[in-house]
C-alpha cells in the first residue's frame, strides 16, 4: 500500500518497520514529528528527553544493551549532543543506532543555518541523505545495517524540505530487531574511553571510514542515471529533485551516502562527463570531498551556499554559468503588489507571556531571552527581549553581563521546557558564583513552539503515561535560589510587584510566571471574549501596546475586541487606564464561545 508520508513520518515508519526498539529525542523543528509518530507505534519505547545530549546518551545506552535505537534532533540539537556523538563514534555499540539531524536551510524556524554533514566527517560517522520520503524510510533500514555491520553510529541527515514534504511511500510490516543482550556488555577496551583505550580506538575508526568508502562504491543508494555526458551532476537530498527537474537530460550521480563518498565511482563518472558540477544545499561538502580526490569540480561558484535552493534558483544560476542556454530562463514579469503589511508570527491572543513582557517593557529592563514562543516578545510593540542565541543561553548571558559590571540589572527569561533543557546548570552557576541575575521561568505548562510536547513539568510522558510532575519551586531552591516566587502570568499587578521586589534585592532570585498556553485544548474550552465599553474608550491606544491580535483599532481610533479571537485573559483590561475594557465579571451577558 502506498501512502503520502512526510519525510518525518517515513523515518518513524522506517524505524518501526526495521525493528528500532528505543527512541529518545528533544523536540525541535523540523524534526519533532519523527518521535511523535514513532511513539504511536506498537511494541516500541519512545521518550522526550530534557535535551538532545541526554536523548543521544539514552539511544547509545539502548544500543549498548543490544536493541536498535534512534535519536532525532534539529540541526542545532546536534551541537548540544556533540559530546555523545563523538564518543559513540569511538565505541560503536552492540546493535544499530541511527541519529537523525534535521537541518533547516533558510532558517524557517531556527537561529542559524548549519550543514551537519560536517559533523559526520568531524566524528568519522557515515552520513546518509534521502531525496524523498520513500528513501527516508528505506535509508533507516540501510543505516541500521551499516551501523551493525561497521560497528558505528550512522547520521541520517535530512533538511526541512525532506522533513515536511509528503511523497508516496510503500508501507511494510514490522520486523523485530535483536532483543536485549542477556548480560549487559563488559568490554573494557571497547566501551571505557580512558585514554589508554581511546588511543586504541582511534585507528579503528579511521580504518572503519576507509572501509565505508569502499562499501559506498556498491551502496545501492548511490546511483548513476546516464544521460547527455556533456554535463555530469553530482547531487543529494532535495537538491537532487531540483537537479532532475532543471536538467532532465544530464547525467546525474545521486549520492545516498554523502560521507564517505565513493572515490572510484566519482572518478569514473567524472572521466565520462565533460563538465562536473555538484548541486547541494548549504556547504560545498560533496564538492570539497571530490576536490580532495584531485578531481576538478564546480559547485558553490554557481549555486548559493546560503538558504534553500529551488528549481528557479537552480535554473537561473545554471543559465548564468552557461550550463543551460539563455532560452531556458523562464521570463516572467514579477507582479508588483506594492508594499504590504507584514504578518510575522505573533504571541497568540491569551498568551501567558504577554503580561510579563508588558511589565519588562514598562520597566525598561535589559532582558536576555531564550528559544521558544516567548522570543516573539522581541518584536514590536512589546520589543522587550534584547538577546536570544540558543537553548538555555538566557541565564548564562545575563550572569556574564552582571559579572562584566553592567550597570543595569540583567534579567533572564526562558520557558519551562527550555529551563529543563539547559537552563538548570546555568542557574546553578548564578547561585554558586554569587550572581544577582533575576531569572523568570515562564511556565506555560507545555513545550509550545514546537507544537505542544510534554516535558518533565507536565506530568505526562510522550507515550501518554502519567508520571512525576517536576515542580519548579523546590527545583529552583535546590539550584541555589533562596528567593523564589510564583506569580499568576495573567495578573499584571502581581507580576510587576514581584519583579519590583526582586529588583530591590541585591540577591539572585527566580520568579515562576505561571499560566497555561492559550492553545491547550482544555484552555480553549474556557474562552470568554471581552468587550470594550465604547462610551468609556477615548481611543488613547494604550491597549494596542500589549500587541494582542484580538484588539482592533476602529476608524474612530477606539478599540474593538474581535470575539472570535479573544480568550478573555484580561491583560488588556488591566492595562486600560479608563477601565473601558470590561472584565469577565463585568460582562452582563457572558458570550458563549
Amino acid at each position, binding site marked *: 500500500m*502506498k501512502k*503520502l508520508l512526510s519525510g518525518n513520518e517515513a523515518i518513524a515508519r522506517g524505524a518501526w518497520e526495521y525493528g528500532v526498539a528505543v527512541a529518545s529525542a528533544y523536540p525541535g*523543528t*523540523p524534526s*519533532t*514529528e519523527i518521535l511523535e509518530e514513532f511513539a504511536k507505534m506498537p511494541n516500541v519505547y519512545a521518550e522526550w528527553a530534557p535535551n538532545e545530549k541526554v536523548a543521544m546518551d539514552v539511544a547509545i545506552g539502548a544500543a549498548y544493551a543490544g536493541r536498535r535505537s534512534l535519536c532525532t534532533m534539529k540541526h542545532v540539537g546536534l551541537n548540544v549532543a556533540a559530546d555523545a556523538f563523538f564518543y559513540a563514534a569511538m565505541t560503536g555499540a552492540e546493535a544499530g543506532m541511527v541519529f537523525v539531524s534535521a537541518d533547516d536551510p533558510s532558517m*524557517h*524556524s531556527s537561529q542559524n543555518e548549519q550543514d551537519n554533514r560536517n559533523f559526520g566527517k568531524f566524528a568519522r560517522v557515515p552520513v546518509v541523505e534521502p531525496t*524523498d520520503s520513500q528513501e527516508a524510510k528505506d535509508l533507516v533500514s540501510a543505516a541500521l545495517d551499516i551501523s551493525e555491520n561497521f560497528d558505528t553510529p550512522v547520521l541520517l541527515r535530512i533538511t*526541512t*524540505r525532506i522533513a*515536511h*514534504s*509528503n*511523497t*508516496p511511500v510503500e508501507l511494510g510490516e514490522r520486523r523485530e530487531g535483536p532483543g536485549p543482550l542477556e548480560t549487559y556488555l563488559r568490554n573494557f577496551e571497547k566501551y571505557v574511553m580512558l585514554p589508554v583505550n581511546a588511543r586504541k580506538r582511534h585507528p579503528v575508526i579511521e580504518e572503519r571510514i576507509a572501509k565505508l568508502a569502499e562499501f559506498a562504491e556498491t551502496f545501492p543508494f548511490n546511483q548513476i542515471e546516464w544521460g547527455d555526458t556533456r554535463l555530469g551532476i553530482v547531487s543529494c537530498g*532535495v537538491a537532487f*529533485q*531540483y537537479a*532532475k*527537474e532543471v536538467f532532465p537530460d544530464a547525467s546525474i550521480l545521486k549520492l545516498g551516502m554523502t560521507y564517505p563518498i565513493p572515490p572510484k565511482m566519482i572518478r569514473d563518472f567524472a572521466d565520462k562527463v565533460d563538465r562536473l558540477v555538484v548541486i547541494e544545499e548549504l556547504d560545498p561538502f560533496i564538492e570539497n570531498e571530490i576536490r580532495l580526490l584531485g578531481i576538478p569540480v564546480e559547485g558553490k561558484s554557481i549555486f548559493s551556499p546560503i538558504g*534553500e535552493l*529551488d*528549481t*528557479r534558483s537552480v*535554473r537561473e544560476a545554471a543559465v548564468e554559468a552557461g550550463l543551460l542556454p539563455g532560452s531556458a530562463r*523562464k521570463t*516572467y*514579469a*514579477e*507582479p*508588483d*503588489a*506594492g508594499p*504590504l*503589511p*507584514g*504578518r*510575522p*508570527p*505573533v*504571541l*497568540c491572543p491569551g498568551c501567558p507571556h504577554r503580561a510579563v513582557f508588558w511589565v519588562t517593557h514598562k520597566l525598561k529592563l535589559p532582558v536576555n531571552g531564550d528559544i521558544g*514562543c516567548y522570543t*516573539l516578545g522581541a518584536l514590536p*510593540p512589546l520589543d522587550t527581549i534584547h538577546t536570544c542565541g540558543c537553548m538555555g543561553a538566557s541565564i548564562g548571558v545575563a550572569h556574564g553581563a552582571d559579572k562584566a559590571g553592567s550597570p543595569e540589572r540583567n534579567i533572564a527569561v526562558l520557558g519551562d521546557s527550555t529551563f529543563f533543557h539547559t537552563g538548570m546548570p546555568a542557574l546553578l552557576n548564578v547561585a554558586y558564583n554569587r550572581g544577582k541575575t533575576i531569572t523568570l521561568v515562564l511556565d506555560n505548562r507545555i513545550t509550545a*513552539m*514546537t*507544537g505542544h510536547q510534554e516535558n518533565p513539568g507536565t506530568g505526562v510522558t510522550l507515550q501518554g503515561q502519567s508520571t512525576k510532575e517536576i515542580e519548579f519551586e523546590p527545583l529552583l531552591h535546590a539550584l541555589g535560589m533562596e528567593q523564589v516566587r510564583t506569580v499568576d502570568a495573567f495578573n499584571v499587578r502581581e507580576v510587576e510587584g514581584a519583579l519590583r521586589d526582586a529588583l530591590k534585592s541585591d540577591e539572585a532570585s527566580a520568579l515562576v510566571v505561571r499560566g497555561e498556553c492559550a492553545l491547550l485544548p482544555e484552555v480553549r474550552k474556557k474562552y470568554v471574549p471581552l468587550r470594550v465599553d465604547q462610551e468609556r474608550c477615548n481611543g488613547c*491606544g494604550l491597549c*494596542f501596546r500589549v*500587541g*494582542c*491580535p484580538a*484588539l*482592533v*483599532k476602529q476608524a474612530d*481610533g477606539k478599540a474593538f475586541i474581535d470575539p*472570535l479571537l479573544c480568550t478573555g485573559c484580561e491583560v488588556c483590561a488591566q492595562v486600560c487606564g479608563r477601565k473601558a475594557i470590561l472584565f469577565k465579571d463585568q460582562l452582563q451577558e457572558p458570550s458563549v464561545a
Partner: protein
Amino acid sequence: MKAVDFTLVGVGGQGTILASDVLAQVALEAGLDAKKSEVHGMAQRGGSVISHVRWGQKVFSPLIGRGEADFLLAFERLEALRYVGWLKPGGVAIVNDQAIPPVSVSSGGAEYPTDEHLLEVFAAVTPRLYVVPGSRVAEELGDARVNNVVLLGALSTFLDADAAVWKAVIESRVPPRYVEMNLKAFDRGRALISA
C-alpha cells in the same frame, strides 16, 4: 491527467495544511504521483503560510518556483497579494473573500490593502481571478473552519478528478462527526464556481 501545480496560502490556523493534504491525496487516488511541501513551527503562530502541492506523472521538486503555479488558492486576501508572484501568467486564482488584519494593521500602524488594489494586481497576471465567499459559506454551515473545504470545492471544478474521489478523500481525513458538514462545504464550494 496532466501535471498541475498548486500553491495554497493563508494565515496560520486557517486549515491550509489539511487542504493541501486532501489535494495531494486526490492525485494519488487518481493514479498520479504527487508531492506536498509546507513549513511548520514558528509560522504556525498566526503567521503567513504557504503550501505547495504538485500533481504529475512523475514529480521531482516538492517546491514550485515563483511564476510557475497553475493555481493559487488563497484563504485570505492580504495573503493572496503577498503570494501573487507564485501564480503563472494566466493561471487560476481563487481567493477567499476574507480579511484577517495583521497586528500591524489592527493596531493602526499600517493599511490593509483595498479590494480595488487586489483586483488591479491580479488583473496584471491573469483574467482568471475568482473571489469567493468561502468563510461566509462556512459560517452558514455552522463552522468557520470548514472554509478550507469550501475552497477545495471551488478548486475541484477546474480539475479532472471526479467529485466522488474528492469526497472519499475528505471523508478519510476529517473526524467522523464532521464528515457531513465537510461534504456539504465541498458541494457549496463547487456551486460557487459553476453557479
